[in-house]
Structures are given as C-alpha cells and as structure tokens.
C-alpha cells in the first residue's frame, strides 16, 4: 500500500512540478501599477516626456494595441506614410493643434477613431490621473514633433480620494482649465468631435444647434451626465459612444453654464 501511495504522490508532485516549471520558463510579465506623478511648477518638457515614456511602455498598457499595426494605429513609428504621431497629430483635425488632439484622443477616444480601426480604446481619464495623461501627451508629441505641454496645462494634483482613484482626482480640475465659456468647454470636452454646435463640429451625434427647442434644461443636463439614459431617435446605433465621464470632469459651474447655453439655443 505504501508503494501505491508513494507512486500517487510522485504522479501528483511530478505533474505540479511540470506545470510550475513551464510557467516559470516563459517570459515573466508583471502588470504594473501606474505610479502617481507629482509634477512641480518647474517641470520641463523632457521630464514630462520621460514620465510619459514610462507610462506608455509600462502601466499605461498602451503597447498592448499601439505598435502592433493591427488593433490600433502605430504611434511611435510610421503609420501609412504619415510619420509618427508627433508629426501627424496637428493635421488630424482641422483647427485643432497637436496638443489638443492628443489630449482629447486620450480622454474621449471614441470621438477620434482612425479610419480602419475599431473603437476599442478605453477613456484614459478613468484610468490615469490628469498629470499622467499630460505626461503621455508630452511623450507622444516628442515622437516626431515638438513638446509644447507645460506646467500651466497640468492641474495641481488634488488630495487622494477615499477610493484612491485617479479619475476621482480629476473631479475638481474641470475641462479646458476650468473655463466658464460654453464654447470653450464644448471644444475642450471634445463635443464637436461628434456634435455640431453653431455650424461647427461633426455629424456622428445629433446636431445641438437648436437643442433647446427639443429638450428642457433638465433633460440636457441628464444627457450630459447619463448619455445612455435616453438616446435620440435615429442615433440608437451610437448608444454607448458618448463618454460617461463628464459628470466628474466638469466642475459644477461648467456644467450649469453648458446646460443653460444649450437650453437657450432654440
């Protein structure tokens, strides 16, 4: 009986050892945590780009798609003869400079899906802090272009929230530097990537030029905060495209300014 027990033990231990050995022989990749950045007022473009480089190749998870040439556009190398991202970002959207384009592509990626690719990129505002996002912008600009991100673009790092979330940390920063001008907010939030306002913007979402004639201020507010709660007729297939993050990206003042501005457009 002891011989049988020993043989069984040998089979069990041998099988476990084999699986453990194989799993230890393959490349060991650990998923890193994006470390919080504390950028001072004197941060240089080089420091920003270096921090962005680390995020891009590490905890940001960007390389899982970008650079393979199949899931998402190449950013650090040539993309269909247009050069790396830093050299082409300023030409992607009319009237939008490189910095704004990259920033909005990170925070509202579904508004800037490159032709031939699926809208698979997550909203990085849910994953990274504003400091981290600006560091990524600087790094991407540095690939073929000029870094023009400066400390003034970056909101001060707020105190850590109870949940420790970077997205929570962005709540008080607001969009477009906290501007109260509705059109600046609309452009800063990337609304015109999909919506037309006063003849400006895209046609993916409903035209907002006369939205006040169709929706009350309360419904407009709800549509900004919970975009999937009600979908405009004819736009059902785009349900889920609009970011749900404006509730914690806009300040209270900005939200109200935006709602009143749109409600007055009858």
């Amino acid at each position, binding site marked *: 009986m002891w011989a049988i027990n020993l043989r*069984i033990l040998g089979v069990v*231990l041998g099988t476990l050892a084999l699986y453990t050995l194989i799993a230890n022989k393959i490349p060991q*990749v650990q998923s890193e945590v994006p470390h919080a950045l504390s950028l001072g007022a004197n941060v240089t473009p080089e420091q920003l780009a270096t921090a962005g480089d680390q995020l891009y190749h590490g905890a940001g998870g960007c390389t899982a798609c970008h650079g393979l040439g*199949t899931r998402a556009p190449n950013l650090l190398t040539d993309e269909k003869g247009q050069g790396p991202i830093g050299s082409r970002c300023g030409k992607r959207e009319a009237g939008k400079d490189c910095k704004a384009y990259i920033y909005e592509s990170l925070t509202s990626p579904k508004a800037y899906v490159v032709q031939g690719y699926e809208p698979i990129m997550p909203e990085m505002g849910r994953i990274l802090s504003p400091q981290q996002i600006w560091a990524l912008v600087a790094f991407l600009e540095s690939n073929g272009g000029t870094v023009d991100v400066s400390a003034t673009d970056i909101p001060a790092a707020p105190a850590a929230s109870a949940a420790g979330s970077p997205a929570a940390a962005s709540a008080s920063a607001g969009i477009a530097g906290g501007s109260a001008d509705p059109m600046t907010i609309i452009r800063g939030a990337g609304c015109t990537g999909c919506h037309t306002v006063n003849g400006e913007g895209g046609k993916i979402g409903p035209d907002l030029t006369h939205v006040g004639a169709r929706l009350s201020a309360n419904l407009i507010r709800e549509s900004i905060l919970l975009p999937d709660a009600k979908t405009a007729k004819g736009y059902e297939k785009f349900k889920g495209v609009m970011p749900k993050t404006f509730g*914690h990206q806009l300040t209270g003042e900005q939200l109200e300014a935006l709602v009143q501005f749109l409600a007055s457009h009858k």
Partner: protein
Amino acid sequence: MMILQAVADTARTYRDFPVIGSRAAVWITAEIHLMFAAFVLGVPIFAVVAEGIGIFGKDQRYDRLSKEFTRLLLIAYSATAIWGALLVFMLSTLYQPLWAYLTRIFGPSMWLYAALFLFESFTLYLYYYGWDRWKYGRSKIVHWCLGILLNIWGTIVMFIADSWLTYMMTPPRDITPETSPATIKIWHAIMNHTWMPINIHRLIGNVVFGGAIVGAYASYRFLAARTEEERAHYDWMGYVGNFIAMSALIVLPFAGYWLGREIYQYDQSMGITMMGGFMSWLWVIQAFLIAVLFLTGNYYLWVGMGRIPGSERYRPYTKWLLVVLVIGALVWGTPHTMIADSRELAAMGGSHHPLLGALGVMSAKNTAVNLMILATFLSFLLYRRANIRQVVPWAQTGTRIQGAMFVIAAAIVLFFGIRGYFVEAIVRIGYSVYQVGAVLACIIFVTILDVLMARGAQSLGAIQWGKMPPRSQYALFILAVTFTWLMGLMGFARSGIRQHWHIWQVMQDTTPYAATPALGYAAIMISTCVLIFLSLVGFIFWLGGLAEKSTFVPSTVEAPHVGH
C-alpha cells in the same frame, strides 16, 4: 457579519499578513475555498444524476455510488465552511476598505447566502441520513427530490457569491468612483455584464471538476482494492467519473466563449489585456493543460478498450486520432501576439512570427479545438461500440451516415477556419458560432443514430471491469490534478484582468500588492493551493474509508456502458 462590517466601517485601513503578505494569504484562502466549493457543488450534481440512473435504470450500483459520494460531501461541506470563514476574516481584517464597500452594497445578499448555506447543509444531512430509511417506492423518489433540492440550494448560493466577484470585475458603467455604495441598488450591482456567463461557466466547470475528483477517488480505491469485485466496481466508477468530466469539458469552451465575449463587450481594453496583453502567455499554458486533458482522457479510453471484447476492430484508428489531437494541441498552443521588447521584435521580424504567426490567430485555434473535440467524441463512439454488433438492417447505412456527419462537420470547421483569414475580425468572431454549431450538431445526431442502431445489438462479450492496467489509473490522477490546476489558472486570469483595481475603474487597490504578478509567481501559488487542496481531499477520502462498512452490493445485471 454586522460586527465585522462595523469594524470595517470604523477602521478602513489595509493591514499586512505576516511572512507571506496579504495578497498571498487571501489568494490561498480564497482559492482553496473555491476548490472545495466546486467539489461540494459538482459532486451533488454527480450524486443526484447517479441516484436517478439507479432508480430509473434499476441498477443498485449507481445508488451505492451516489451514497458513497454523499458521505464524502458531509466532511467536504465542513471544509468549505471553514475555508469560507477564514476568507471572510482575511478580507475583513486585511482588506477593510474593500470589505466595507462590498458589504455596503451586498449586505442583504450576504445574509441570504449564510441562510441558504444552512438550508443546504441540513438538506444534505437529511439526504444522507435518510438514505436507508427512504429506500423503496415513493419514498425513494422523495429522497431523490431531496438531492435535487440540495443542488438548487447550492446553485443559488453559487449565483449569489458570483455576483460579488463579477461586480468587482465588471461593475455597471454608470457607477463611478464618486458613486456612494449606499446609493447603489443591489439588483443593479448583481445584474452586471459577467454575472450570468460566470454562473453558467462555473456550473459546467463544477460538473467537470466533480467528475474528475470522482475519477481520482475511484482510481485510488482501484489501486488499493483487495478483491476482484472491488476492483471491478472502482474501475467502473472511474470510467463513469471520466465520462462525466470529459463530456462536460466538451461543452465548457462554449461557455468560455460567451464569458470572453461579454468581457470584450463590457470593456475592450480588459479583453485585450486578457488575450493579448500581459496575460497572453497564460493562454499558451492553458492550451498545454487542455492538450494534457484531451490526450490523457483519450488515452484512458484507448487503454480501457483493452478490456472490451471486440475492440480490436477499432484499434488501428487510435493512432490517427492521436495525430489529430497532437496537431490540434500544437496549433492551439501557438502564441499570437506577445508582449516583446524591441530586441525580440527585431529578431522575430515584427510582432508576429513569420511562419507560426498564422497559426496563432483565433481562426486556427478554433479550428484546432473543434477538431480535437470531434476526435475525442469519435473515441467515445468507438468505445461505446466496441463490444457490440448492430443487427438493425440499416446498420451499415447508419454507420455511413455517421461517417458523413463527421466529414461534413470537419469540413465546415475547416472551411470557416480558412475563410476567417480573409474577412474582418468582427465577421471572423461570428464564424466560431458556425464551427461550434457544426460540431454540436454532429455530436447530437451521431449519438441519436448510434442509440437507435444499438437496439437489440448482439454482444461480443461483457466488459471485463477491473481488467485495467494500473497506468490507466494514474492517468485519472493526472486528469484530476490538471483540472484542479486549470481551475486555479483560470481563476488567476479572471481576477488578474482587474489589474490594480479592487473594483474595475471604481476602486483602486492601493496596497503594496496591487501589481498583478507574473505567471511564474502565479504558478507557484496555484501549485501550492492545489497541493493543499488535494492533501485535504485525500484526508477526506481516508476518513470516508474509515467510516465505510462493508456495504458492497454485488452487481445483478451485466455492466452496461454509460449512455446505453
């Protein structure tokens, strides 16, 4: 529980566990609890099906088999509860912020969970201790219904626990870090994206696991048997366990596809992290384990054909089945997109290998696994038919139709596999449904035909239960270890794709253990958990043996194949 929540509410800090750290402590406790939970959920399904076959097929052996396993369940329930209590202590003391958050949302369901666990335990006591009292006539049916009730309690308990862990993976999208957990409706949290796919996946997985553990138990008793009769009984039991495990395993990938699709639909980046990001190598290991399962399961059947008179007719086919299985396993194990550094990418000439890259895509992998399933089903079919000669006049035509069904199913699988290379990804994903449909249709219709053809079949001799070489029994052990290890690996994949989030994009893990470890570390943890679990299961089996009296019921009917 209220005290634990109160403690969590007031403190809300992380604490560390001595020596091995908080993550390892919770990992081991949760994993072993889950393994026991799978055991006490899978084996009752096995037991109630066996008792039903015993009642309606009037075969006492199945009744004895069912009772034998229900006795083991009594001890296994205690082990499940002990490890579950340990897990609650660990979470409530080491991860207080997370525990406070979860109890705030899921508190009522935790009470229900505890109550149902009590109901389940008492139903089990009634089921086991009433076995001999309610043995005949209508009372036996009532007893069988108790077994069904036991499974219903168990399934609800699992569904409740699944809602907690799936919420951590895929919280509803309107919940943000600012959302107070007190304002989240419990049903809204439960009905998250992956709740039902995980429920179904685990339900099937538990049946596989239950069958594998039964197989291991039977193989141990076979090797330790002192009489021919005992050896015959445990040989038969091992076969039944392997049959159930392999049959459920064939369905499991389809539930896995559903779960994977839901993850992608919820958050593409989560899906990409799982399949193509830092976890991409995990699927190579999984492919290796599945290959071991298919090869070992088939090997057991092929060796088993040695004890079936008339099986010589089919032996020449086994080498071709082996070729299909090995090629299929190699294709399935071919990596596609790997995280590589610039030096590795340059050496490979790109992100994909120039030759093998073509085999690493889902088109090739789906084709390979579907052909492996077909080959395994063919092995079962040959085993079933080994000792009979069909006498129905249309037997030859029927066999040709069966052969044609195999060829058509394989052709459909190959056609969509090759065509998948020339279409968009979104179209290609849909092709897997046609491939799976063809294989399932083949399995169903060929089985129906086979049952009809076997009517009144002439026997070429009874199966000589007990005449199995010992090596076949060690194969059953390898199956049990591999199933358990695979469960640990898939648990790591499911939990690990949350990365540094307790609750995906809602609550961040800010402990020193927030980074998701590499596969090497995970493998050591999984092996440790499997070893602890199997040691405890071995102890339970030993206790079961101590409690067992000589209750051997000699078989009064010729041992049939399962499914005859």
